[in-house]
């Protein structure tokens, strides 16, 4: 198991390298540099030039690239151009937020999506099926920033169940959990459509399988047939879609993070891009690509848990 994880991580190195190189090239093609942020808009061109030299931005692209790679190889993400803080610190500060939000929205997405999908499959073409399909789409149709504000207006301002600023009382675990609810619902809704879809089509297929008939021939109640026999077989495609979604969530979290005032990798990436904080941006892209690689590994490991055909052989 451990060996597998290590092996997979090693195999991911070329991918990470390619991601890094792409980011490196892309950010240097974008016009703009961090001097506006550091020096403000009243500084003269000369002092900007001077700062650029000092930050190493005046060096040739190639030597910047080698410097950067050298640093990464030493396991050092470097320091932020804008704040000069170690990037690792910035990342570690927001990572817990990103992880908890991702996990919580996965839970929301599956907890809503799966029963909806099963229901839709059971009542194929009936009103319940139509409801499930349309409802699940609503989650993806409303841009996250709109749905987020709507949630805030109802649940935070009107009902006062949850805080608006979800990072406000981060120290108190209970408060933190409370603050997590709305953002994860908002982000999780994005997943519902996909989970519902996969579950529905998987269930439709599974319910037609011979083993379901076998289960019924044992005289099992329909509930048990559905959940124990049919549904278990749909877990594999669900895990696939959830795994794929981990990556999507990390990116799409930006909007939710902005609306709910949460720190997070996504938001930090956008800030870094906006400030042309190259080193920070690079560091964050490494982290997020790495997170996706880890998500893939987790997905693979999960296959083994939900599908004995994968595990035993």
């Amino acid at each position, binding site marked *: *198991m451990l*060996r*597998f*994880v290590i*092996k997979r991580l090693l195999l991911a190195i070329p991918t990470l390298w390619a991601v890094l190189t792409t980011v490196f090239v892309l950010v240097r093609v974008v016009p703009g540099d961090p001097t506006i942020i550091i020096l403000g808009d009243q500084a003269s061109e000369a002092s900007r030039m001077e700062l650029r030299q000092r930050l190493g931005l005046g060096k040739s692209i190639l030597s910047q690239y080698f410097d950067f790679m050298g640093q990464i190889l030493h396991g050092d993400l470097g320091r932020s151009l804008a704040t000069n803080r170690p990037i690792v610190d910035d990342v570690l500060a927001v990572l817990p937020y990103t992880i908890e939000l991702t996990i919580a929205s996965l839970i929301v997405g599956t907890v809503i999506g799966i029963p909806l999908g099963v229901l839709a499959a059971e009542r194929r073409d009936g009103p319940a099926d139509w409801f499930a399909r349309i409802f699940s789409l609503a989650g993806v149709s409303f841009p996250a920033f709109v749905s987020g504000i709507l949630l805030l207006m109802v649940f935070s301002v009107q009902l006062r169940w949850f805080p608006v600023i979800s990072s406000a009382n981060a120290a108190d675990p209970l408060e933190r959990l409370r603050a997590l609810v709305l953002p994860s619902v908002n982000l999780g809704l994005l997943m519902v459509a996909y989970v519902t879809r996969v579950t529905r089509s998987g269930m439709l297929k599974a319910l037609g399988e011979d083993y379901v008939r076998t289960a019924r021939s044992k005289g099992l109640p329909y509930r048990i047939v559905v959940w124990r026999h049919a549904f278990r077989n749909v877990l594999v495609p669900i895990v696939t879609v959830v795994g794929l979604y981990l990556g999507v969530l990390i990116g799409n979290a930006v909007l939710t993070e902005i609306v709910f005032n949460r720190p997070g990798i996504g938001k930090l990436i956008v800030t870094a891009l906006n400030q042309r904080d190259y080193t920070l941006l690079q560091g964050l892209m490494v982290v997020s690509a790495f997170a996706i690689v880890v998500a893939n590994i987790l997905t*693979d*490991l999960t*296959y*083994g848990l939900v599908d004995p055909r*994968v*595990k*035993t*052989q």
Partner: protein
Amino acid sequence: MNAIPATPLLDIRDLRKSFTSRRGWPIARTSVVKALDGVSFTVGAGEVVGVVGESGCGKSTVARVALRLQEADGGSVNFDGADVLEASKIDMRAIRRRMQMVFQDPSSSLDGRQRIVDALGEPLRVHGLASGAAVRPMVARLLDEVGLPNSALDRYPHEFSGGQRQRIGIARALALGPDLIFADEPVSALDVSVQAQILKLLETLRAERHLAFVFISHDLGVVRYFCRRVVVMYLGRVVETGPVPEIFVDPRHPYTRLLKVSSPEPDPTRAVAMTFQEGEPPSPVDPPKGCHFHPRCPLAIDRCRVESPVLRDVAPGRSVACHLAT
């Protein structure tokens, strides 16, 4: 029927093919299946050779490798003087026109989105045998040959019954006017009465077109009816070959014997002895040492467990791979 000509049409020698598969979680392990472990036999022009053996013993693989749908690991395939395994892409086109295959599963071997007229017309067009308006009548003739009405032309495969689809598969194999057809269990998926229809059809075609067949099956009854000679396979190896009546009257290899006693006859007075034959068919991934059949063989002796028997002649036209056979 026809005598066996001096130089066979198809000569398969010592054909080998292994599949490696990687399985396991989370760390995959590689395992090797020797699907073909030195298979040799010949087929004369217009001759029908049956290949029998249980599921997974490598019957389909023989056909696939001989047609270069999969590349062999070793051995040779000679078709009418041409070395098939070494043939270039262009030569292969010519060879394939003369060597065709009817696939085991009629529904998966047809493109579900193609009408029959296109499915059968396409090879004609591609090989320049017909074009434009000439295609349709030609396809109609082919369909007629396999006993399907003209109305079938514009239908999709799923609109046919299993037996009809199998006929379409046969018509497609006939389209290019081949000399040899690999028929891979063409009737195993069918009902007895439909099965009889197809076999009749094949017999007629053989006689009319002087076609040679490699007829793959695991049903001795079917093979007995249709084939002149038979090759019995077990786990990637040939264990017995011989002419049809003799091999069924007097099987020499214990596996052939087991096959025979296990095949039930529709006659209650001669009900076969339903026995619990000891043991399961061994896994092809990890075949037993020596004679592959020894774990299930009632006669096995120590030698069988260490030394694998070679195929040797025991009577004119008959050979057996068994240490104990006479």
